[in-house]
């Protein structure tokens, strides 16, 4: 009986590429059905409780490596979510997005909506600048502290 294991080599290459870009030495991620760990050769520093896999953050469509998310959260221009909810990039479906990457925004300008308990909350730019990156898709669930966009 064949015991062939399916290797998702595209995923492994992608993870390896991420490690190169960011200088990380190890990435581990998983879900209910699988878990993957890639590590650059050499000693791997084991953190605390060894077998705990990082829980899938509800707010992401795919499963992002935890370490990368930390880097983005530390970015000086990052705008993080002040609440739990569902983020929308436009005022209504079919309407143009509040902002696009590359736009200049002023402090206080509405850049997103986050809906919770049927109430839509306006998320305003904390500073003026250029929108460098939008990390979430419209309709994505977000948690407190989740990086939404980068404005600098």
């Amino acid at each position, binding site marked *: 009986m064949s015991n062939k294991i399916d290797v998702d080599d595209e995923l492994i290459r992608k993870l390896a590429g991420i490690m190169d870009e960011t200088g990380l030495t190890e990435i581990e991620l998983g879900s209910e059905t699988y878990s993957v760990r890639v590590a650059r050769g050499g000693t791997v520093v084991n953190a605390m409780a060894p077998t705990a896999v990082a*829980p899938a*953050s509800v707010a992401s469509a795919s499963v992002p490596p935890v370490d990368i998310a930390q880097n983005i959260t530390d970015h000086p221009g990052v705008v993080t979510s002040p*609440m739990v909810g569902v983020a929308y990039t436009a005022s209504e479906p079919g309407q143009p997005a509040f902002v696009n990457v590359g736009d200049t925004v002023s402090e206080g300008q509405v850049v997103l909506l986050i809906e919770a308990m049927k109430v839509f909350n306006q998320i305003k730019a904390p500073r003026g600048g250029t929108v460098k990156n939008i990390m979430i898709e419209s309709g994505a669930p977000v948690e*407190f502290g989740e990086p939404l966009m980068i404005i600098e």
Partner: protein
Amino acid sequence: MFDKVLIANRGEIALRILRACREMGIKTVAVHSTADETAMHVRLADEAVCLGPPAAKDSYLNIAAILTAAQISGADAIHPGYGFLSENAEFARMVEEHGFVFIGPTHEHITLMGDKIAAKDAVMKAGIPVVPGSDGGVSTFEDAKTVAERIGYPVIIKATAGGGGRGMKMAPTADDLETAFRTARSEAGSVFGNPEVYIEKFLTTPRHIEIQVLADNHGNVVHLGERDCSLQRRHQKVLEEAPSPALNAEQRSKIGDIAAKAIQKIGYRSAGTIEFLFEDGEFYFIEMNTRLQVEHPITEMITRIDLVREMIRIAAGAPLGYDQKDITFLGHSIECRINAEDPETFMPCPGKIGLYHTPGGLGVRVDSGLYSGYTVPPYYDSMIAKLIVHGTNRNECLMRLRRALDEYVIDGLKTTIPLHAKLASNADIVNGDYDIHWLEKFMDDESN
């Protein structure tokens, strides 16, 4: 059965709930504050949602955030643990209104038992013995005198709007009544904004004995015996044991049946605990807790019933599947609440855990979210672990407790393990000879 449960709590109880869910094949959602990102239950959960910054009001008490987290994660049910929102009737009501199942009693019962006077009235009508008292507010000294003479001195005058041990004045004899009464009223007026007081018989050396009950949605109720929680400091329980060394089988069975019948009569569902003061062979109702309690493990050890699993099963509509004759009590169990505090001054000592080693062996259980390298955050209460031991009898249990406390290593911060070690070899404790004032007297003696 639920597919996914959201755990609306933190610390050891969140881990406890997670474990029960996992054993039932239920997916888990851990909601947490930023301070708890590295908590063990958050790491083990299938999904995690950060609710807000550390302050409880922004996170664990943040109803909107918790309900939204339930919505976005697609949870079916919410377990509130203990403390935080577990006895918040508004929360329970909103959970159900938003289409989730609240793993606990109905919001109506939470409301009923949250009102001290209404609760006392309801249980009294259901046959539960209560502390003899004024049955309502007392407004004149003449009325106070009449009540006090009827119930007998000493009496205690309590503020209706008070609580947590505050707003109470004792009158040992008839000569002390007038001063006590008038002072109580004026203090209640200025501190609580409501001068109304009621009077109860004052019990001088009672034990705190509580009965665990479990009720399903189909009218089936059982009691799971008692827990003796007399060892308290400032109304916080420190060490608990089951069964109580002060009760015999007949007393246990009698009060258990009274409690179970009352629960059935009021139509309560889920887990609940009825707390009594016990003095001179008599039980007096103090209050009912409509939630899972911290000390539930000692009941689990002697009955071999998983209380969290039963709460989940009941909430999902399952019948108990057993009745009172199926409940058997085996052996003896003791729990020590271990706090990150100086064992003498009780000053909180949060910090980073260095070397961590839990005791093991037959009959030893540790309920804790701690691990080596974990940092205990300073924002929440100081209980960091529960050490629970079981033995075939009380003596064996005490020996095992001493042995387990000796093995337990929590480096990096101060804990109350040394206090528990003292208690576990203290003559009065070993003899089961203590009441609700014992521990504070012991601490006073120790510091002199």
